[in-house]
């Protein structure tokens, strides 16, 4: 009967943040950027294996499939930590979105995938962009004719899909296809964004045989989106936390006019305004995750609010933290831009703020019929 993290959750937070601090220093992220270039996936498979050993890959996978069987709030803690360390992993798609959908559709194949995810062996990418934003005539469709037909079309900005072993593809709001990533007729193109720490791709389908197609999977798809939005909000908030910490640390260290710049009221207030946005957003995020786990009626619009709101404060914090750093913050060398760009890219991945707010209003019955 309290509002906050449990002892177990605080321990989880400490464990993951500690692991990332030890293992994924920013130099490793830089290396990863260098290694990946534009032709391969920046996700750090070595780190992902270690995280799987810590139970992170299967954090929301049921215990029957070898997962940790924890809730979304636990996943949020991990996602925040990954954002905080700008770690390139397939956590969002593989450990949060895919398991949510797979558990909801159920069955042998889904259970196999869940077990693979929990062990860290299977990376699953997710293609959902066209559910909320169709551009470039994108969309994947079942070739007309028979059930379980071949897939045609394309999906843009599919998450963690470039280096994935398996793919979940939403054909529409109620139809979900399971696809092997090496299926003939499937082509993957890395779509490079400003953010070198997240992997997005285009998937082209030219008569691809899916492993399975679930119709009537509306609830599974909706839950997958909710979980994804909340976890992505957590990622951005984690990145924000780090940017505030870095700004405060820099302000305590950097001297100009014979004083540390953090003793100037303008700099102080910039820092104060940032933390004043971060702290209530954390409370909102916790509640959104709690709602996903326990108050399902509120979760659809609460997840929209969490992501939209945190995306908005994220843009502001990314800019203000950089300004606190002055010219140094604008150099590649200082690394601060890795956070800036992670926040910038995440802003639209599962729906931009305007779109999410419109959806939140609609879901609450606040849009009168025209």
């Amino acid at each position, binding site marked *: 009967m309290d509002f906050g993290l449990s002892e177990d959750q605080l321990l989880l937070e400490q464990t993951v943040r500690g692991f990332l601090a030890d293992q994924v220093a920013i130099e490793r992220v830089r290396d990863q950027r260098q290694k990946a270039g534009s032709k391969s996936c920046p996700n750090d498979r070595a780190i992902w294996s270690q995280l799987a050993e810590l139970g992170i890959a299967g954090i929301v996978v049921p215990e029957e499939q070898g997962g940790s069987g924890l809730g979304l709030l636990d996943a949020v803690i991990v996602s925040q930590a990954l954002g905080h360390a700008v770690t390139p992993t397939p956590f969002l798609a593989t450990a949060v979105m895919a398991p949510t959908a797979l558990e909801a559709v159920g069955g042998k194949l889904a259970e196999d995938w869940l077990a693979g995810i929990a062990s860290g062996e299977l990376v699953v990418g997710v293609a959902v962009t066209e559910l909320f934003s169709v551009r470039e005539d994108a969309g994947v469709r079942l070739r007309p004719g028979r059930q379980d037909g071949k897939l045609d079309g394309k999906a843009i900005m599919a998450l963690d899909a470039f280096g994935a072993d398996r793919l979940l593809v939403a054909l529409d709001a109620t139809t979900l296809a399971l696809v092997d990533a090496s299926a003939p007729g499937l082509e993957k193109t890395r779509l490079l964004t400003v953010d070198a720490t997240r992997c997005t791709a285009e998937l082209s389908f030219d008569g691809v045989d899916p492993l399975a197609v679930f119709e009537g999977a509306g609830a599974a798809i909706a839950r997958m989106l909710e979980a994804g939005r909340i976890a992505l909000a957590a990622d951005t908030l984690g990145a924000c936390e780090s940017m505030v910490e870095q700004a405060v640390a820099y302000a305590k260290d950097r001297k100009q006019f014979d004083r540390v710049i953090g003793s100037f009221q303008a700099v102080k207030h910039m*820092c104060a305004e940032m933390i004043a946005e971060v702290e209530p957003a954390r409370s909102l995020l*916790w509640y959104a995750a709690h709602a996903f786990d326990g108050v399902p009626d509120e979760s659809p619009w609460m997840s929209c609010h969490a992501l939209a709101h945190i995306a908005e404060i994220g843009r502001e914090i990314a800019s203000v933290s950089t300004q606190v750093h002055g010219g140094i913050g604008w150099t590649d060398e200082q690394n601060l831009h890795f956070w800036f760009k992670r926040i910038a890219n995440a802003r639209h991945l599962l729906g931009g703020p305007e779109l999410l*707010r419109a959806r939140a209003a609609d879901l609450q019955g606040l849009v009168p019929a025209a």
Partner: protein
Amino acid sequence: MDLEFDARYDAFREQVREFLAHNKPGGAIGMAEGRAEHRIQWLSLLIEHGYWARTIPKEYGGYGAEPDLLETVIMDEEFNKAGVPRGMMAQGPSMLVPTLLTHGSEEQRERWIAPTMRGEVMWCQGYSEPGSGSDLASLQTAAREDGDDFLINGQKIWTSGADQSDMCFILVRTEPDAKKHEGISYILLPMDTPGIEVQPLRTMSGDIGDNSFNQVLFSDVRVPKANVVGARGEGWKIANTTLKHERSSLNANAEGTWMRLARLMKKETINGVPAIASPVYRDRLMRLQARALSMKHHGMRMLTCNLKGESSGVAGLIVKLQNCQLSFDMSALAIDVMGELGALYDHTKYERERGYWQAHSMFSLGLIIGGGTAQIQKNIIAERGLGLPREPKPAKA
């Protein structure tokens, strides 16, 4: 997160509902009319059932229960639903009582806490002075020693409710030779002491929607030294304990205001179309909902810290800053959707909700300024919350 309402809580909620069903009319009417005997009767009844002064020890006239987040939430929800006040929003219970519990002598606690919680003794706060606003510690109202008494001379401002209070908790300078922060004492002063003059203070919103503010003048006002709370010269530290508490627990009921705003937007039409049908206004409404929900849940988080006696750290320091601005921004949207009628005031024709939103807007602006301006709040957040250094002292010119 443990927000499940298990069976025990269901029973508690049932009990609250039953109480309200039996006792609603008397309480609601009595408090609304502000008549002293009704107020005292209602607050006493609430204390008896544990809905007010719930966690205050029995020996000081409270109910003596353990703090519990969900019970608090349930009580608030049910009383709100019934439209009945759960206690009394006033300076005595919210500021003086916590101070006495921490710093008061046994005698002061026994004498003042119970009648204050029961609404028998009403308090006002004597902190700000015309020359000491943001720099409160520079206050000049002097208490000169005279035997076992002090003689108080000076002037206070923003003393809301001074004209209707029995007592005042006041900060005065008792040690003129000590450093600025070390010369102040916290004193309990009867308002009927000779030499006190209360003058009403009109604010920008005129007579509408304000608490009644006052200036209070003191000429040779005699008060026994025994009325000092804590030690002499410790008044600054003592007052700050409560201010800190106030900052983190300021409950602006952002969600309630937001709901009222959403109702307004469904009802108010522009060229025959409800305001909420405008995508631009609706987008603003949604932005505000996210902020209001953030502050609601943040309030739950702070309440948890307070009930557990844990420090909320920087998360507590930002509450006032954010709630006041949010409150101002919500009234701004309300005023905008009412358009050219949004500025109507003072019971004029077509005025909406009796000018509520205009009053709310100006009052919110006052809250942004009062009790430490937004700038002072940001200093506190940066220095105490984030550990940034204080501004260096200026060199003597």
